[in-house]
């Protein structure tokens, strides 16, 4: 059918929200439109000539669309665009800025596991995985995506309230010579020097050293 009469207000704030390269397009409904607005989405690889429609996001009434699969090659950059429809009218196509999955994604904190002996605690960190199409899909750690990835580990002595910071590149840390029978709380952050990215600190994992025998 020919193009509809495009005088509907445009979708607003069309942008990618990306965590661990799970890249989801988000937007806000056109101003002043109530329920009933439908949307369609298209995307393009920067430098390649054509826009590609996303069938799963055609005539949808939600204001997001998961484009992780279509934008999974992080050596490319992308644009996405949204058009709104209501009562036979439509809006203009509204585009994102250029999206670079490598630099524009947010990174989750690492997973932290802690064990203790009488006088030491052992910390093991696991970097989050890059988004993958299905649970059976190949797992790619963000460590492979960002080779310079490092961990900042904060260790808090709950008795003295003193906090120590460790910066490590490998994913294990043993802190020896601790006080027996004392609670320590550990949290960790990912730091990528370049491109400059860092996660928030993880929640605290607390553990007590064993009591003196």
């Amino acid at each position, binding site marked *: 059918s020919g193009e509809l009469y495009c005088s509907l207000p445009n979708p607003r704030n069309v942008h990618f929200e990306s965590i661990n390269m799970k890249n989801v397009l988000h937007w806000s409904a056109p101003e002043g439109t109530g329920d009933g607005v439908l949307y369609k989405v298209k995307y*393009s690889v*920067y*430098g*390649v*000539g*054509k826009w590609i429609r996303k069938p799963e996001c055609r005539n949808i009434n939600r204001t997001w669309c998961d484009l992780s699969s279509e934008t999974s090659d992080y*050596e*490319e*950059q992308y*644009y996405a665009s949204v058009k709104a429809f209501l009562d036979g009218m439509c809006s203009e196509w509204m585009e994102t*800025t*250029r999206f*670079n999955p*490598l*630099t524009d994604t947010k990174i989750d904190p690492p997973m932290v596991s802690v064990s203790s002996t009488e006088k030491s605690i052992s910390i093991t960190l696991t970097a989050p995985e890059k988004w993958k199409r299905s649970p059976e899909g190949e797992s790619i750690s963000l460590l492979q995506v960002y*080779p*310079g990835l490092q961990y900042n580990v904060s260790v808090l002595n709950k008795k003295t309230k003193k906090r120590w910071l460790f910066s490590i590149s490998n994913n294990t840390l043993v802190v020896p010579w601790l006080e027996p029978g004392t609670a320590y709380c550990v949290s960790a952050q990912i730091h990528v*020097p*370049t*491109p*400059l990215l860092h996660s928030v600190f993880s929640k605290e994992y607390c553990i007590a050293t064993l009591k003196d025998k």
Partner: protein
Amino acid sequence: SVTEIRSGFTAIKANIQARDPIRTLSILSHPHSLHKVQSSDRCCITHHLFNFYVDKVFKHCKTEDSYVNRKISSIANSFLSVKKKLRQCHEQNKCMCGQESTEKFKQILANYKELNVTSAAMKSLGELDILLDWMEKSA
């Protein structure tokens, strides 16, 4: 340093890329991606690209925004500083150009010539993260 180039570019990336309306052409990444360049040719391509940006690109990127102009100057002077180091590698024959890199760089110049100078320069500047991502990945 490259880190400073990256932070300078990040500060003006949205502004510069917004000035490039052409989605269908990339100077650096199509039809052949920088990421497909063999490791043996990386130094030579980097050397060529730094010369390309210093000689051809930055001077055509003047904007009406003084903050953006200052950041472009900062990036351009950082490029000049890195370019001099790369020239030393080239002069010590540690930066040999193979057939592939020569072809790749020809393609980049061809892409550049498809647009008028200002559009091509602004597009190239907006693609700095493509260059930096590739350099840092292969560092």
